[in-house]
């Protein structure tokens, strides 16, 4: 490719600098929007921008081409400052067909840039999208800065010389769009061409075609004069020095589990049944067999947790994951794990509910389910990841607690974290603390429910150990011998011990994640994937001079004492959640604080502006 680094440098010089840009790609499920978005994100990340992404795809694999149901979107926010969320609204919307336009136009603010592939605005496509007339021509888009490009035709033309069928040619149009965006945001096209070649190495015809389409798009931007006024330059963000990679939440979670296995010097056993948006965790881990990871695709979620219990009992680091409906099915099994006290991590990648709900959308509505969704008094430690890369740390933490306290631990993530991506500063492996674990081997004086006085953990004895043969099970057990016991006081004692053991985990919480003053008018308390939006909103309020702080929880159970103290130092407490107020209920019950909820249940993350408004309402 002929564009040299220097020519790009000089080009850049003439560009408008902006702090951050939000681009949304939208097209048909078959149009490859997820790939386009991902590639564009990588380019921004490697160029040093901070990034945050929000893929948004339909529940159908491939709804009818051109239909509204089939629209797939990918939003990326890149910034020279911190990109803590994927952005409230797009600055640029790339609409590959009428349905994509219709489904997304309302989100584009006045004056936003709209790039529309007019080649796809045919009569039948317009009809499928429910348009009677072409919206590009009847005033519908007057409020925006519209760039109508016949991407379809230009792509086909660029591939004239190839031997691809016309259908195959048409499928390259996303790379044309990608090329155009590369040019608009001064990304390095050579690097991308290299990627394309690597990615499609096994299909050289496609590699060639996609690279051609990509370059065509890039050159088109450079050549077509129309774009000169919308080319931007986003300076690199100032990052901590280190090595970075772009990471999605589920991939980070997978790496965290692999790392935990290495840190504990134990094999990892993962079992699960596919379900959106947890499946990719299974997919990732099944690729890490060479790190001693065994994955088991079970016949259902119940078998998923069952097999994990078996593996944990056998001495492995056992993990099972699912999303809401599958977590519901695992409840009885999780109760068994709690009763028998085997270490186990249960991951819930939350999605829109109830029931099948909105499988591909995000929500935080399983908190109370994982806390209380089991028969009997059955408390468990519950941790929540707050960003894609935080899932790595949270996974290690969850394993550490499971092993240290010999208990099942729930790890909450959500669709937004799982699919979203951000630059991740890779940890120095040698600085990660080892996870101490041991299996008792000494038969002398062994009692099944004898406990470590600090952690209340019982010994994790694995089959195969001579002299320690014993029986466990779901019936209540004697507090010492582990034999079945129907004794009333023993039951009460064991109930208290199980509860106290979870409370002891509070020692692990450490200082709470906090930004802003130590006391003041409004404390925003959040958890999970809303981290970026809440933090940014709190910072915005601070910038505006308000005494607003933000505390973000990783430990949902136990909540610990520090939180209570902090709550008491603010006039008002706001708990924004993507549910109807689940953490809010816990906080009110525990601390008797009149916490106010700010709740959104739309399958979408918070916009920063929404949270800012909610905070302002309390001042």
């Amino acid at each position, binding site marked *: 490719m002929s564009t040299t680094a220097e020519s790009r440098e000089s080009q850049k010089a003439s560009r408008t600098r902006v702090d951050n840009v939000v681009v949304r790609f939208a097209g048909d499920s078959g149009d490859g929007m997820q790939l386009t978005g991902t590639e564009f994100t990588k380019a921004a990340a490697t160029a040093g921008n901070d990034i945050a992404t929000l893929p948004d795809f339909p529940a159908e694999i491939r709804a009818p081409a051109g239909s509204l149901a089939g629209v797939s979107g990918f939003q990326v926010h890149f910034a020279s400052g911190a990109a803590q969320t994927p952005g409230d609204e797009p600055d640029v919307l790339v609409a590959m067909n009428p349905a994509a336009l219709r489904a997304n136009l309302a989100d584009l603010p006045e004056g936003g840039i709209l790039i529309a592939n007019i080649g796809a605005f045919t009569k039948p496509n317009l009809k499928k999208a429910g348009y009677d007339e072409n919206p590009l021509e009847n005033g519908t888009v007057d409020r925006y800065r519209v760039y109508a490009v016949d991407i379809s035709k230009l792509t086909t033309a660029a591939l004239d010389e190839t031997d691809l069928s016309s259908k195959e040619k048409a499928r390259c149009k996303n790379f044309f769009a990608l090329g155009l965006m590369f040019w608009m945001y001064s990304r390095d096209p050579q690097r991308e061409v290299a990627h394309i070649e690597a990615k499609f190495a096994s299909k050289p015809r496609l590699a060639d075609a996609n690279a051609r389409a990509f370059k065509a798009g890039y050159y088109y931007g450079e050549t077509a004069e129309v774009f000169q006024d919308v080319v931007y330059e986003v300076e*690199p963000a100032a990052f901590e020095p280190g090595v970075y*990679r772009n990471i999605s939440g589920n991939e980070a979670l997978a790496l965290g589990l692999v790392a935990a296995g290495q840190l504990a010097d134990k094999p990892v056993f993962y079992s699960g049944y596919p379900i959106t948006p947890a499946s990719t965790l299974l997919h990732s881990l099944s690729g890490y067999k060479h790190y*001693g990871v*065994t994955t088991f695709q079970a016949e259902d979620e*119940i078998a998923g947790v069952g097999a994990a219990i*078996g593996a944990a009992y056998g001495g492995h680091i056992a993990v099972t994951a699912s999303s809401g409906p599958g977590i519901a099915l695992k409840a009885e099994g999780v109760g068994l794990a709690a009763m028998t006290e085997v270490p186990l991590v249960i991951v819930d990648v939350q999605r829109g509910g109830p029931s099948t709900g909105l499988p591909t959308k995000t929500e935080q509505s399983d908190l109370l389910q994982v806390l209380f969704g089991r028969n009997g008094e059955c408390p468990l430690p519950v941790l929540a990841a707050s960003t894609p890369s935080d899932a790595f740390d949270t996974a290690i933490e969850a394993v550490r607690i499971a092993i240290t306290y010999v208990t099942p631990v729930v790890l909450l993530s959500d669709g937004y974290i799982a699919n979203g991506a951000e630059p991740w500063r890779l940890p120095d492996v040698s600085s990660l603390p080892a996870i101490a674990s041991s299996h008792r081997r000494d038969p002398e004086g062994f009692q099944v429910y004898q406990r470590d006085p600090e952690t209340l953990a019982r010994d994790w004895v694995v*089959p195969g150990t*001579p002299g320690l043969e014993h029986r466990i099970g*779901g019936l209540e057990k004697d507090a010492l011998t582990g*034999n079945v016991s129907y004794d009333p006081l023993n039951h009460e004692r064991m109930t208290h011990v199980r509860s106290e053991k979870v409370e002891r985990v509070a020692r692990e919480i450490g200082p709470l994640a906090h930004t802003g003053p130590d006391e003041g008018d409004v404390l925003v308390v959040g958890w999970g994937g809303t981290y970026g939006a809440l933090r940014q909103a709190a910072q915005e309020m601070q910038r505006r001079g308000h005494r607003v702080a933000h505390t973000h929880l990783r430990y949902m159970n136990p909540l610990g004492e520090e939180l209570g103290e902090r709550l008491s130092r603010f006039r008002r407490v706001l708990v924004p959640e993507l549910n109807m107020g689940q953490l809010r209920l816990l906080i009110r019950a525990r601390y008797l604080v009149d916490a106010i909820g700010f709740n959104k249940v739309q399958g979408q993350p918070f916009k920063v502006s929404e949270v800012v408004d909610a905070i302002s309402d309390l001042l």
Partner: protein
Amino acid sequence: MKQPVEKNRKAGGEENGSGKNGAGGPGLKLTKKDFATDQDVRWCPGCGDYAILSTTQKLLADLGVRREDTVFVSGIGCSSRFPYYMNTYGFHSIHGRAPAIATGLKVARPELDVWVITGDGDGLSIGGNHLMHALRRNVDLNIILFNNKIYGLTKGQYSPTSEPGTRAPSTPHGSVDHPANPLSIALGAGATFVARAIDVDAKHLGEVFARAHAHKGTSFVEVLQNCPVFNDDAWAPIVDREHKSVRQLRLAHGQPLRFGKDGELGIRLGAGLAPEVVAVGDGDGEVPPSALLHHDERAPTHYAHLLAELAHPAFPVPLGVLRAEDRPSYEALVGEQVEGAVSARGEDATLHNLLHSGMTWEVGDDGLPR
């Protein structure tokens, strides 16, 4: 960073010799009693479960297995209390899920000897699906289903194997469900080892268990078990001393299907592929042994189905090993993949390199990408 997998996969083996309770050293041979726990056995007097327990304890002693390498996993039911009485490792889990738990255990720890104890309700009602999938996968488990044709623990409701018309607390007018045939289900699911035995026939039961234990892959054994409290004598027509010679068909690989006191009866394939009982001999209307069906544990599965379908009163009930087929066990295949991947990985498969894989970039001290 150490390589945890190989180490762990060998764990059982490494430590066996040293344990004070291990059966490793010479002269340390365990007896049946060594396989009993100190817990009172809490089944009703006369329950068939006692006999099965006793046979199992004796068998394990005879086989010279190590207690510490043996694990009994069960679900819920009277039968599922079994692990409490076996002085091995034991897991009394939840209703119907034992095959799933055992699968996880066996895949994680293939060197262990894992038994699953289940009932007709536990294994075929709530747990039918896990049973089916364990059998299909051929995980190397010994699954023993205690079939008393009733829910014992919950006080006598009819079960999936109960005879139609069973009057039970939930079916005062008699049940209308068509009963499930455990062997047909197992065969339909793709089981590689399918057998049947009787609680009180200790010798035969022990032989069948020994075969099941020796089989690589899932062994499925249906044990006809009497529940004197809620379904007394449900198997009496078959077990009954007086009639057993004509109502039981003892299977022996390679041998013709003969029964009766002196083998005077046999089974052959009649018109329309229907099996029929014939008199064996060279008399009039009698059939020579060569014309009978010959038992073949490795015949195409439909033959085992034919056996499984033989039912009282039209036919004698087959006992013994109906089918034994060689097929790699699931955990072996999984282990191969994992071990293959582990050993194929280069020196560079470190955690550091894993994290640094994919597209990375460096940010310098100036906070800008290099």
